[in-house]
């Protein structure tokens, strides 16, 4: 597999989608703290470095879908996947070599964000607050593990679909569906159980009267709530939503789920790829 890794990393260095991904994340890393700094100056209140710092979880998800579909899709598009198999490499080795290179590429994109964000943010906004620092560190680590899950899913899709355009469509749409689903579940879980009590004055007495709180029809309760809460920690899109707002509580559980997803998807991907008819 070392030969395949050497070949794939060599190609990665020249890959245009990888270069654009690095530049994009680097630019986002500058824009986020800079826009916070501008807002801070304009409205006169303090914004700390941790605010918006983990937004890259969202961009990481999208970039992993774009990168995997283009990088691996090229192998099918140009027919070069055949060269690897004809040269006598096992399908498992071919699959793992692409997975490892894709994960490395996404990690490097995340690092590009972290470096530019810290280099821009620390001088403008100062360092993280003492209370936030361990939370941010935990979130950064979980985002890297989530990147493994997202990349595993996109690698599986790209390895099993031999049409580059179809792969790109499936991966990008799939990630957006994950993210929208994540946003939806989050919104439902944040619904209050009761609508807030409100006060009003009557014209006749001019005295304040209150209406009792009413049950919120959008509130999710019972088993359904338990399922939603599980999905909120389990699904990669939901994890990304929690992580990018620094609001994740169950970092260990989410990391475990990410590793589980990556392992199951990769195992299934290799099983199917092994039986795939390559054209």
């Amino acid at each position, binding site marked *: 597999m070392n030969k*395949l890794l*050497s070949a794939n990393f060599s190609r990665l260095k020249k890959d*245009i989608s990888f270069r654009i991904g690095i530049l994009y994340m680097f630019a986002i890393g500058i824009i986020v703290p800079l826009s916070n700094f501008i807002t801070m100056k304009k409205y006169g209140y303090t914004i700390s470095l941790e605010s918006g710092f983990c937004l890259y979880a969202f961009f990481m998800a999208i970039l992993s879908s774009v990168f995997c579909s283009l990088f691996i899709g090229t192998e099918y598009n140009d*027919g*070069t996947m*055949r060269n690897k198999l*004809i040269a*006598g490499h096992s399908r498992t080795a071919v699959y793992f070599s692409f997975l490892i290179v894709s994960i490395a590429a996404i990690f490097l994109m995340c690092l590009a964000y972290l470096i530019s964000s810290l280099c821009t943010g620390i001088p403008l906004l100062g360092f993280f607050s003492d209370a936030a620092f361990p939370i941010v560190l935990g979130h950064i680590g979980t985002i890297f593990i989530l990147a493994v899950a997202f990349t595993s899913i996109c690698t599986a899709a790209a390895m099993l679909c031999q049409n580059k355009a179809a792969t790109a469509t499936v991966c990008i749409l799939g990630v957006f569906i994950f993210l929208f689903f994540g946003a939806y579940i989050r919104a439902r879980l944040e619904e209050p159980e009761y609508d807030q009590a409100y006060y009003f004055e009557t014209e006749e007495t001019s005295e304040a009267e209150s209406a009792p709180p009413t049950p919120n029809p959008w509130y999710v309760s019972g088993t359904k709530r338990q399922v939603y809460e599980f999905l909120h920690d389990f699904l990669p899109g939901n994890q990304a939503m929690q992580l990018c707002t620094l609001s994740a509580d169950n970092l260990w559980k989410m990391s475990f789920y990410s590793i589980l997803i990556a392992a199951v998807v990769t195992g299934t991907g290799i099983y199917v790829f092994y039986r795939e*008819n*390559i054209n």
Partner: protein
Amino acid sequence: MDYVLTVNAISKSYKRFQALKNLSMHVPKGAVYGFVGKNGSGKTTLIRLICGLQTPTSGSYALYGTENTEESIQTVRKRIGAVVETPSIYLHMTAEENLKEQYRILGLPSFDGIGEILKLAGLDNTGKKKAKHFSLGMRQRLGIAIALCGNPDFLILDEPANGLDPQGIVEIRELILKLNKERQITFLISSHILDELSRLATHYGFIDNGHIVKEISAADLDRTCRKCLCLEVSDIRAFALAADQMGLEYHILSDTQAEIFSKITITKLILPLSEKGCEVLSIHEREESLESYYMSLIGGKTHE
């Protein structure tokens, strides 16, 4: 005879469609094996199976005596190179970069042989030109150059002349002949351009509807397709005696039928036969080209 590739009753099905049906074939070492068949006859499917891109539904094949079911087949595959359908090249890379990438895939320790391969394929002057800007012929030659990395001794080329202009076809032909003669590389070339194949092949395999109709050496095919006079005579012994006396090259087919390959006028042939009491019942001239031979095979005529 040493065989590089032996295929034993191989079948391949895609859902309800059976692409190959109990196909068997034998590619001798050092041969240029012309794999002839019409579009959709199963040529590319068989090549994909041999290259390990797909697995047979039933049957087996052996490369250098190693069965496809053995684990060591992956090691044996390192001895083959292939261009399947379209050349497998990175379009955004130059010819040299493509070869370097293939060297890395093969795990070759240095890039030393790249210049030689580029020269051999006639791509040594392409410089920084990306493969996407290459002509079809150049891409095909780059595909062959990539297949040549690692010094394989068996090259599989699927329709190498497809879409090429006459000059491109000549270039590919010369390259194949050069590699076969100078490096003793065995070739399996699938094609339906019979005229082109007849200039290269030392052996033929004719495939139709997923199975091999006939395997024949080029020498045997030449013999079969030779221009001759076909005679039906009343006394085959008298015919043989007369033919020997005249020094004719002939071949007796049955008690009443014979073929004469030497040039002779009918008058000069019939008079001596008549003197020996042998009547000529019928006579006709026959000449078969590779194309007509192929058409008669596919049409169902037996040549066993």
